[in-house]
């Protein structure tokens, strides 16, 4: 219990408001269900409070939600990315700053640079774009790092 909590972090009891270090709750050591338990019992009132990050199920659900958000591209911190552009649209590249350096060099070598317009041909299972009659396929992990201007519909095919 409490293993997922950062060292020194305190919990506030939801019932009595008492603040305590969940790793120091003496009752847990003697509890037969203590191993793997994601709750911490308040030493003041005995109320069981969930430890943030303590539940494997919650962590799994959070990871799945993050992955889903990532796929939809809604986790992009600023502006739309190529991962969000629809197949068949055109996109104007604005930035490659969030693309890993090695892949950025590759994209630049193909002419995918700020200001250039690409035709988005496909988005799954990888992104495929056409630039100047050359087709380039790259993973969503890369297209998520490519910032674009607002996509327009009806790109050339």
């Amino acid at each position: 219990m409490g293993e997922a909590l950062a060292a020194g972090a305190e919990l506030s009891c939801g019932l009595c408001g008492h603040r305590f270090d969940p790793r120091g709750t003496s009752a847990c050591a003697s509890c037969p269900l203590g191993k793997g338990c994601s709750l911490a019992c308040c030493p003041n009132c005995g109320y069981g409070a969930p430890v943030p990050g303590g539940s494997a199920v919650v962590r799994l659900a959070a990871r799945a939600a993050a992955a889903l958000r990532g796929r939809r591209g809604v986790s992009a911190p600023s502006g739309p990315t190529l991962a969000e552009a629809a197949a068949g649209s055109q996109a104007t590249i604005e930035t490659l700053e969030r693309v890993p350096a090695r892949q950025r060099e590759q994209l630049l070598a193909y002419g995918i640079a700020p200001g250039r317009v690409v035709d988005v041909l496909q988005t799954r299972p990888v992104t495929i774009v056409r630039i100047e009659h050359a087709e380039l396929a790259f993973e969503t992990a890369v297209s998520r790092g490519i910032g674009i201007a607002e996509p327009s519909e009806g790109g050339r095919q």
Partner: protein
Amino acid sequence: MAGCKGCLTFWAMGCHAASDLVEPVSSPLDEIVLVGHSNVGKSVLFGRLTGRYVTVANYPGTTVDVSRGTLRAAGGAVVVDTPGIVGFPARSEDERVVSRLLLDGGARTVVQVGNARGVRRTLDLTLQLLELDVPFALVLNMSDEADAAGVRIDPERLSELLGVPVLPTVATTGTGVDELAAAVSAAPTARAEVAYPAPVERAIATLMDAVGELGVSVRGAGLLWLGGDEEAQLCLERHVPAGFLTALRAEAEQALGEPVEAVLQRARASRASELVAEAVEQEDRPAGGTLEWLGRLSTHRVWGWPVLVAVLAGIYMFVGVLGAGWLVGVLENSVFGRRVNPWLTTEVARVLPRFATDLLVGNYGLWTMGMTYALALILPIVTTFFLAFSVLEDSGYLPRLAVVSNRVFNTLGLNGKAALPMVLGLGCVTMATLTTRILESRRERLLVTLLLVLGIPCSAQLGVVLGMLGAISLAATLIWAGVVAAVVLTVGWLAARVVPGERSPLVIELPPLRVPRPANVATKTLMRLEWYLREVVPLFLLGTAFLFMLDETGVLPAIIDGMRPLVTGWLGLPPAASAAFLIGFLRRDFGATGLFVLHAQGQLSAEQAVVAMVTITLFIPCVASILIIVRERGLRQAVAMTAIVFPLAFLVGGLLHRALTVTGLGA
């Protein structure tokens, strides 16, 4: 095969050690180097210029080493074909080959081969190459495809702007090749007029003062280095004090306020755009057509898989049913079994003494075993496979396979690009090991090499397996394929977690799907068959002679007896299978053929056939592949792989024998 004969040690002078010097080049006309992006037709052009054929295909990375030939047209100059590059800085091993070659300081003419359809990208590289201050000519290849796509280039205007010859060609038909051969003899040196910001020019000027003579343009090498090219850095580091380059870059970046690579790229892109605006017109043409539709289908998230299944089914029907089934049946039974071998055995026995008769036509006879295996069993299989594979290569499907399979390779810590060497491994694992150079990191090259030697059967073995297990039942083939795939995936998954380093995401160019040219398919197939006959037949004969000598001296029965606990006790196979495993150490397809014959003679049950084929499939492919792994990955890794693969093969075979016995599937 072409490419593997090229030697990396002929680079001379300049940035490379004197020990590398083999053939110094005295005049630019003595050597002409073809440089360019991947998949633009350099190797086809090389063939046109020299009359020498190197493997060409419709996917990037076909050439991973340099090839040399003599120019047919004039003066006997040497023409060098180089691996295609994505651009500078060089990233993968094959790109470094080009970078090193350009920086070695030898006097030579550089001919850039570019794709006329992607002229802006071509010009970006042109500007980098012109900075090296070498005699230069630009070839705009595939100009027929550019015409079809509505790209109108004015070569005269472009030539005027660049100050070098610009020649449109169609290498596959030979259009423009004679003009090129004439133009290279007078190729001028021109300076790229790219306007770099003052801090970049200051850094280059400082570098030129510090370096002095380099044997190659210091400005060109310096700009490559500033662009992040590690080969250029290695080259310059030999001429300046330690820390000089780091300080110079830091100073330039401080003045620019951003990474210098980005500044250089932007400046070149801007100049390339100006050139395009002056010399290129783009007509709007409706895209589409059946091939483009097929191309889309083959990378579709859902339909990509049925397309893959259809391709595999087609290969199975052509190689497994037609080659390994019908053709092998005709040759083995009708031609060799009933006519050639009985006649030869009688004639030889009549003329030669017993020892010579046994050596030629006995149980382990050079003809009755070595040549019969090579010509009656393997040759029809590899012929059909090479034909099918050449069609697949030229169609441009293979890079699309990389897209479809990317997710599978993701679980192995790789990206879909690994599919290219893996599929090439179905043709020849030795050549595929060389092709791992197209992968970007040492880690990826190591992982793919391990998977290649472990579980990718080469064409000959695949044909034997399909022919033998296909004749038993579909279930037998599926069990073999399932077990081998499971072992490859498990070992790959584990290795990806043990070998340090990170997976790199997939970035790959997709060439247009094309209808394969029959002449190219036929040439490639014949070339590969020639390689097969030259490399494989001697090994088959050597292996047969080895077995014959062991048999004659009484050692073979002792070895078979010694291997009994492993072969009979652990794998549950008859003792005679030991001889097949013994020659399997030399070439696993040779061993597989021995097992094929045992099965044909009724000495192996269905269950034993599956166990034997799984075991030998997991062997190291052949002696040649071990040698190439030593060359590419080093002795330690080659020894480590061998030490893993052989015990694992027997372990999996024994476990499968027990699993089939317990479940009753083997019956």
